[in-house]
Structures are given as C-alpha cells and as structure tokens.
C-alpha cells in the first residue's frame, strides 16, 4: 500500500507538501524496476529545481536514469546519508529514503493522487 498523503509523477517520483515545503523521493515501483543500485547524485542545498527537469541521477545495473522534479523551488535540505545507504530505497522508499526537501514555488500540473498512480503502475506492468 502506497501512502495517500502525497502526489506522484508518471516517471515515478513522489512529493509530499507540508507548510510550503515538498519532500521528494522515488517510489517502490521505480526501485523494483531498478536493481543493484550503486550511485545516486543529488543537487546541493541552495540549488534550484524546475518542474519536469532532471534534479539528479541514479545508477543501477549499469543503467543511468534521470530523476525528474515534480515541483519547482529551492532545495532547502538534502538526504546526505542516502547515497551511502542506497538499500534504504528498497527498505523505505516513502520514508527514510527521501531525497530532497524543496521550498515550493510551483507544482507540476501532472501530479497524480495515489489511486491514479496505482493504475499507472498497473498499466506499465
């Protein structure tokens, strides 16, 4: 069961917005279709992210995948421990494997609720 307190992108990022700050990560579906995660590259605190543009990259099974921002804004916190503990992404993708906290200036119009995201995952197979 995915949490219903956040929104999702088709590209399998999630965001949870509280008091104008979005916590961002990737979903269990994304993690399950990657494997043998080895590298994660995230922006620094103070950087800007933009809706639909890449905010980072992750490498698994020799495949580099871009990560896409569900919101625009300034990065106010980065989960600096995550690149050294990529197993967290499988253990708790909606919890301790969060990636960024971003002060929100705009949200993607393509964000889905959990019901729509579940259906999207089912359609992708």
């Amino acid at each position, binding site marked *: 069961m995915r949490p219903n307190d956040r929104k999702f992108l088709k*590209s399998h990022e999630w965001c949870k917005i509280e008091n104008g700050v979005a916590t961002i990560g990737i979903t269990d579906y994304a993690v399950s*279709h990657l*494997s*043998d995660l*080895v*590298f994660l*590259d995230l922006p620094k605190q103070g950087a800007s992210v933009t809706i639909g543009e890449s905010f980072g990259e992750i490498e698994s099974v*020799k*495949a580099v*995948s871009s990560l896409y921002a569900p919101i625009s804004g300034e990065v106010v916190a980065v989960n600096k421990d995550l690149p050294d503990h990529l197993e967290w992404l499988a253990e708790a993708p909606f919890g301790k494997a969060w990636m960024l906290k971003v002060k929100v200036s705009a949200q993607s119009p393509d964000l889905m609720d959990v019901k729509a995201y579940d259906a999207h995952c089912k359609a992708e197979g």
Partner: protein
Amino acid sequence: MPVGAERRLRLLRDPDGPAAWNMAVDDALLELARVPTLRLYGWQPHAVSLGWFQPWADFATLPPDTPVVRRATGGGAIHHGDEMTFSLALDAERLPGDVAAGYGLLHDAVQRALADCGVASERLATGHAQRARPGSPWCFADPGRDDLVTERGKLLGSAQRRVRTDRPRVLHHGSLVLHAPPLTPFVAAVADVRPVDEALRQQLAERLTSRFAEVLDLEPFPGALTAGERALATRLQHERHEDPARLRRR
C-alpha cells in the same frame, strides 16, 4: 506496443570515428530519433570511454596520448580497439520495464547473432547481477549475471542511459570485442574463436541487425542521420564531449 506505432528499425552503418563524435551522435539519437535506431560503428583512433559516474582519478595512469571520452551510459570503462560497437536508441516501452530483463533480451539477440557466425558464447544465468562498479574500473574485468562470456572471459560490454523527455527513452550501448585491446588484454574476443576478416565483420553486422529486429519485433531499413540529428551531434561533440572539464568533473 502502441497501436499504429512505427514498426521499423533504422539502421545506421557509420565508419570508424573519433570518440567525441561517436558519443555525440548517440546522445543526439537518444534526444531526437523519432524512429527506433540501431547504429553500428567503430573507433578511430582507438579510445577509452568512461562510465557516467566513474571518477577521473581512477584513470590517471592511462597512456597520455589516449583519447578519453565520458559516455552518457553507466558501467565501467572500455578500451575501444577493434570491436563492433552498437547503440540502440528507442522508446523505453519497446524494452521490458525491468532493466535487467532488458539486458537479457538484447544479450540474447547478440548471442544468437554470434552463433549465426559460428561463435559460441554463454549468457551467464547465475552469479551476481551485472555490477555497475566491479572491483576493477574496467567493464570487462568482472563478468556477472546476464553477461555474454566465452571460456576466456567477457565478450560483450553493455550499458544504458534512461531518460524521460516527452516520453521515456533508452540509449543502450554495446561493445562486441573482435580483437582484445592492449589496455584490457584479459577480455574475450571473437578472434579467440575464429579469424576476423572483412567477410565476418559484414556477416556480424547483418546478423546483429536481424537479431535485434527480431527480438524488438521491428523491420530493419537502411537510414542516415537527419539534418537535425547531425546538427545536434556536431554541437554536442564540441560542447559536451571535447570539454576536458566535463570529462574530469567526477
């Protein structure tokens, strides 16, 4: 596959080219190709390509005149000598969603193409998954599950980049070794099994094309870069792949 989707596989047979051009063309295909595209090419002069995340410091002892480029794809470094290199640029939906399963599909195609040419290889079914960062920085040093091997070692190097532009896209790189290159003499090579002459090179190119088309359920046709792809590749060659700061940024 979506109803009415293009079912053709564009084949680009390129002459051996410099490293920066080779990588720039593949980047342009990932970004702009509207048709699933298979590109076969080689390297002149011979060169080393680093995986996207590899630290430059690991290669400080390379011979100083070695051309070096950073691939958009992951994995370990490859010394590109006499090899048949291929890239596939296509929509992600044409491959299994699971990355490892996608490797399996494409490696099966290469294995069948090799067998068509009288070169037996095995796809490893057990062992660790293909590791993005083995103990050695060289891609061929550490065969893992799904890798194509002979008794001598790993025969095919593979890596991917996955992006979502207007839709999810994949660039898949493959390096099929014909003769073992001097910086990585431990690799397996087609020449270990049978002499490599022009006829075999031609046959391998034809069989790879047919086998990729078969597993992707596409019809191959000979093509060329579009004007837009060529213009983007020319720009990326200079701005991205000939920029030493970018090469050394990790």
